[in-house]
């Protein structure tokens, strides 16, 4: 594999891993804030215990999210130095604002929240978790401002070979940002609510603090039901935006090799032959793609071959086709996982209204396993977005191969070594996080054994009055 290939693999692996933790941080902080606010209003201690329980799971998640996020910010410079130099003037600003406006907020107040139960007034304490929730969402906004600019560069000119910002306003009002941010934010809320729903279902199933977990079951079901619709509606508008903004990505996501007729069908599954530019087998729903793309009953969608020709005309000779099968199947994976969450959320809501969910053991079991769905959907969504933009790193402006660090500074071996190290370390962190999640979930709402741990034998002070270490 080439140095470029290793750099791409490193980015993919570390970003997908980092993104296992991000949406839970965004979604769960909001839900905990709601639980604590209910506690503030009702003074019912169950809600405080719930806030603490979910807060504990949140903190386990947050630790890995924070430290893997450091690599995200650094690896543009590490692996993509030419990209960084080329786009720094535009792309660096939202990253820096993210650190100053958002990350400071969440990191400072999460400490105050976690340790402030006895030190802060109840109102001030509830405020800290709302500020954390605000910080996580602001953080998403600024990061997605940067990412949206890679999808749809606006507000810049090329000057001395680099992209130079001409309008920060344009960067902030990027149409791509305003479909991408709501979709991602809602997906994060859906992730948080399914995280809560699945674990609540599990606790109810094994009869652990049932009365309390019914309450978080209810909250997460309601939020999931509302959000699962919105995320699809907004996601749909994002797909429609692609028609204009990145026709190649849309065509690849549909494995549509040639421009469709006025009434375009939507492939549910397809066998893709990328070499010969054809799909030997597909199952299709008539009219769906036209509907998806234009929200009306007629309109043809451009095919890969045609967009490729336009791009050669515009950007010169080259292959502008992304990996079609990955784009196609990651898109479908996301759509199916999202649809499944919608169905589960509404069935859960229905059973809850009918007060029958406690008896439906099989459904609680399904809900428990459904914790995987948001993770699958999130990863697939990002893979579709990023792989579907290839071969560009900045759409229509810089090719990915032009963005990688110079081999004189970063030979392939360095990336291989660091990828190996990150894979091992990330694997170990994931193992530790899952271990602690299991422990915390098994413990339920009982007093935290660590806090109440026996201090043990009296301590042997081995130091004398501060003038030297005596051992």
């Amino acid at each position: 594999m080439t140095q470029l290939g290793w750099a791409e693999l490193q980015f993919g692996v570390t970003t997908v891993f980092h993104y296992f933790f991000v949406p839970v941080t965004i979604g769960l902080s909001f839900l905990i804030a709601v639980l604590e606010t209910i506690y503030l209003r009702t003074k019912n201690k169950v809600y405080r215990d719930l806030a603490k329980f979910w807060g504990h799971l949140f903190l386990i998640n947050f630790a890995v999210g924070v430290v893997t996020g450091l690599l995200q910010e650094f690896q543009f410079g590490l692996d993509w130095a030419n990209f960084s130099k080329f786009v720094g003037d535009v792309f660096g600003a939202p990253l820096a604002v993210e650190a100053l406006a958002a990350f400071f907020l969440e990191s400072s107040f999460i400490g105050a929240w976690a340790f402030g139960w006895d030190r802060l007034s109840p109102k001030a304490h509830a405020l800290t978790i709302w500020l954390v929730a605000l910080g996580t969402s602001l953080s998403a906004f600024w990061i997605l401002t940067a990412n949206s600019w890679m999808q749809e560069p606006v507000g810049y000119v090329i000057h001395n070979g680099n992209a130079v910002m001409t309008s920060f306003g344009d960067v902030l009002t990027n149409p791509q940002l305003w479909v991408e941010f709501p979709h991602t934010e809602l997906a994060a809320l859906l992730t948080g609510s399914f995280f809560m729903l699945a674990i609540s279902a599990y606790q109810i199933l094994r009869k652990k603090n049932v009365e309390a977990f019914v309450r978080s079951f209810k909250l997460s079901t309601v939020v999931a039901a509302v959000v699962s619709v919105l995320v699809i509606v907004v996601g749909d508008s994002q797909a429609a935006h692609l028609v204009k903004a990145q026709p190649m990505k849309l065509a690849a996501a549909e494995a549509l090799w040639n421009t469709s007729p006025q009434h375009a069908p939507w492939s549910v599954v397809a066998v893709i032959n990328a070499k010969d530019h054809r799909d030997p087998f597909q199952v299709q729903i008539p009219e769906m793609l036209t509907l998806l793309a234009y929200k009306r009953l007629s309109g043809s969608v451009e095919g890969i071959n045609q967009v490729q020709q336009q791009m050669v005309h515009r950007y010169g000779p080259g292959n502008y086709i992304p990996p079609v099968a990955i784009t196609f199947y990651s898109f479908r994976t996301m759509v199916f996982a999202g649809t499944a969450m919608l169905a589960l959320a509404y069935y859960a809501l229905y059973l809850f209204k009918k007060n029958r969910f406690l008896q439906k053991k099989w459904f609680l079991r399904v809900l428990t396993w459904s914790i995987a769905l948001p993770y699958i959907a999130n990863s697939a969504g990002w893979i579709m977005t990023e792989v579907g933009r290839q071969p560009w790193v900045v759409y229509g402006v810089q090719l990915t191969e032009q963005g990688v660090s110079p081999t004189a500074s970063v030979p392939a071996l360095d990336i291989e070594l660091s990828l190996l190290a990150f894979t091992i370390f990330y694997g170990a962190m994931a193992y530790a996080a899952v271990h602690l999640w299991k422990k915390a979930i098994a413990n339920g709402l009982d007093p935290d054994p660590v806090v109440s741990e026996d201090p043990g034998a009296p301590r042997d002070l081995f130091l004398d009055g501060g003038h030297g270490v005596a051992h």
Partner: protein
Amino acid sequence: MWLRELWFVLIGVLFTGYFILDGFDYGVGILHPFLNHTDLERRASLSAIAPVWAANEVWLVAAGGALFAAFPDWYATMFSGFYLALTLILLGLIVRGVGIEYRSQDKNPQWRAVWDWLIFSGSLVITLIWGMAFSNLIRGVPINGHMIYVGNFGTLFNAFSLWGGLTFILLFMVQSAGYLSIKGDAFSRKAGRAVEARMAWPAAVAMFLWFLWMDRLPASAGHIGGWTLLLQAAAVLSLLLARMAMYLTKAKLAFFLNTLSVTAMTVSLFTVLFPRVMVSSLNPAWNLTINNASSTLYTLQIMSVTAVILLPIILGYQAWLYWTFRKPVNDKELEY
């Protein structure tokens, strides 16, 4: 144009904040296995940094973001050039941060022993490499005429940079000693005083020699002004005064003086660099400077407005955070 100078200063400010705050976190990590013998002692000293470590680390994130936005070439050349070194810093940050959060959540002694080791080695590696990195920025590294680093990992290891790394390690140990002596539980406070007593002199001597060396480097010629010398002297003297303050059991004053030392040292490093940001050991004409490595003035203006509004707010709530947790750790109610 003064905006480039402003951003050079702001990056100096962010690194200073980072070294002051995460400095004592790393010091606590480095001292972790030596200072604390029983499990309770270890939990108590980690509890002293537990509410604030994430808030402290953000200063590095902000410094990284500011580098990217204000000096993309500095960011790109340094990060790709110091590739494996920064990878080690990241690995250190990963295991240390997770370690602080996870270590005490399982009673299994093996679990705790592994995290103890990771917290220690992570903190040590981070500290060593930042010392080496700043030494190399000042000493110069092979950068060609296209702002490309053409050295390798081994290039970063030289006597001067290793001495810088050692200085950082000793300094951060002292910095954490001051912090523990006011924030720790009864045991940690005592231990902190003992470390300050033992380590302040070696740290001051190491730093003094490092400065002496730095000021005689070929790359420093013409960059050591009166201000630099004053700051260097202040950094070394503050450490000695801190030692004295601790002897007089004035722990808060000692912590303040340690902090002053870290501040003066960090600022002095930036004064030596200015107006360069990375020195080329191949040709002075290939240095990265605030002029050839910066963003456009438009971007710098936007960033300046943002920073001017947000930095006071950040300082405000971080001060509030420290105020809220001003009470020393009580080992009867450990949460970590």
